[in-house]
């Protein structure tokens, strides 16, 4: 038995606690965190980090290979591919955050409603989910982009219209289990309104698995966004976006491989980083207290 007086340890700052918690995660999660962290940092501070403007033409430096002056080389109008990639990543990540996290709460809420009420409400919502998921994702998004018109707006409308259904299906199946839990039965016994039961008590519990699934969705959506832009249906030139940079480099694939290869590698690194984090989290190895 120790007789020393118990003094509470000094609480580390919020940032310090976050860092320590991250450091207790498995190695792949840490590696993934570093990769994603670097790319997010580069994207946020693109205007400060980029050595050139995204559309600065330089006809004395066309199709130059990677060098100290141009780390990712230049394209056929002498634009710096590195700077364009930074700006492209910036817009890509912003749009991807929007098209991933706007449909998520909508889907979770719809799934929660379907699962909570069951019966006819469930039937209607489930059929809408089935039909939305039956379309090949990209085909339905392209069809919506065709109506709204090509561009980022079209994608930011089109993807959420389709993507909520995946979260709704996930949340609905969890809600079916959740609604039988004692604390949910208690909300009925205590006479809480259904709205309060769903929004305050069920939805917070349903968010966790949707948030974990959303890490996969982030990568899928990033590839989708770049793919649509590559097809000319997303970001419109001349502004930089990873898909359009790659598309513009296609004409010079053999004599200027860097224009298509290097921005694509940035996409791969981001995807691998998020994949490592997601794998670690879904393995149930999230250490350091409740999430």
């Amino acid at each position, binding site marked *: 038995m120790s007789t020393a007086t118990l003094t509470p340890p000094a609480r580390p700052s919020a940032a310090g606690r976050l860092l320590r918690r991250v450091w207790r995660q498995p190695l792949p999660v840490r590696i993934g965190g570093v990769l994603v962290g670097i790319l997010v940092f580069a994207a946020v501070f693109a205007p400060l980090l980029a050595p050139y403007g995204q559309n600065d033409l330089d006809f004395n430096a066309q199709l130059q290979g990677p060098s100290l002056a141009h780390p990712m080389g230049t394209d056929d109008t002498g634009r710096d591919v590195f700077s364009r990639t930074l700006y492209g990543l910036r817009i890509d990540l912003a749009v991807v955050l929007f098209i991933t996290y706007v449909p998520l709460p909508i889907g979770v809420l719809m799934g929660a409603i379907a699962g909570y009420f069951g019966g006819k409400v469930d039937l209607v919502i489930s*059929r*809408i989910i*089935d*039909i*939305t*998921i*039956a*379309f*090949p*994702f*990209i*085909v*339905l998004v*392209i*069809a*919506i*982009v*065709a*109506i*709204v*018109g*090509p561009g980022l707006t*079209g994608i930011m*409308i*089109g993807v959420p*219209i389709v993507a909520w259904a995946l979260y709704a299906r996930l949340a609905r199946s969890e809600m079916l289990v959740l609604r039988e839990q004692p604390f949910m039965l208690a909300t009925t016994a205590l006479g809480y309104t259904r709205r309060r039961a769903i929004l305050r008590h069920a939805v917070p519990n349903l968010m966790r698995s949707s948030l974990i699934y959303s890490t996969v969705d982030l*990568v899928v959506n990033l*590839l989708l966004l*770049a*793919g649509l832009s*590559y*097809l*000319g*249906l997303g970001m419109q030139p001349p502004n930089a976006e990873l*898909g359009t940079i*790659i598309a513009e480099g*296609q004409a010079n*694939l*053999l004599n200027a*491989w860097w224009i*298509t*290869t290097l921005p*694509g590698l940035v*996409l*791969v*690194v*981001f*995807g*691998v980083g*998020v*994949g*490592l984090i997601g*794998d670690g989290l879904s393995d149930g190895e999230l250490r350091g207290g409740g999430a």
Partner: protein
Amino acid sequence: MTLYVLRRLALSVGVLFGLAVVTFFMIHLVPGDPVQLALGGRGTPEAVAEVRGQLGLDRPLLTQFGDFLGGVVTGDLGLSVAQNAPVTEIIGQRLAPSAILIVYGLFVALVIGVPLAIIAALRPNGVVDNGIRLVTTFAFAMPAFWLGLMLALIFGLSLKWFPVSGYESGIGGILRTLTLPAVTLGLSLAVVVVRTLRSSLLEVLQTEYIDAARSRGLGEWRVVGRHALRNAVMATITVLSVDIGFLIGGTVVVESVFQIPGAGSLLVESVRARDYELVQAIALIAGAAVVLLSLATDLLQATIDPRVRLAKR
């Protein structure tokens, strides 16, 4: 079995009807006006009204829907204004390359995915398993269009083994022109095959009947190949049926990279040409293909495994 087939069939018909409803009403519910887009956004009210009349968009909504539905049932999906030809005819000419690409891609995914999954499952968490996991993590993160371009750069432009664009029919032509696209499409699907087949193999390998087979002195090849794989393959079929949509969607991008005249590249061309009738029809056909193919895989599973048809009764 008959009951299961009928129930499953009824569900598919319901979803097919839903697909028709969505493709039809999308144009009315989503903000934006394809007629204005078709006129380049500068259409005078008179011009817009005229095009609307041509397309029959000025009639009551339910009349339009009735006509549309009647057309769908009889295989008449309207007229492409841009190409001045029946939509079904235009799409019909472009279906073959897409269908062959999908089958070829699936083949590539299985040829790459199944052996890797078996190797990974035999020594879980070994060096090879971790290596395979690393490779699949990378493959998952690769955009299909970028992977296609890289393959075109290496095997097309540098090594000159394959052409980098175009399509030829016939066995030789298909092997020449569709191999790189099929590998592009198949690699991303192989990732899914490896992951699901590996984990379901791991599960099966821990069951008692596998222990029994081993204790009878059967060789490892026979235990895995004949006994374990059969049970593990069901999970993979399920995943593949879910990923049919992914395969069909993938053709859109891959066909555009390799300039294959299929239905996928037609979709992109139609959006650029603002040919909304064609876009609508392709979306509907793609959706219907997914529904019918997943119906087919469900029935296949019910035939292979009696537990499926009995559980869902």
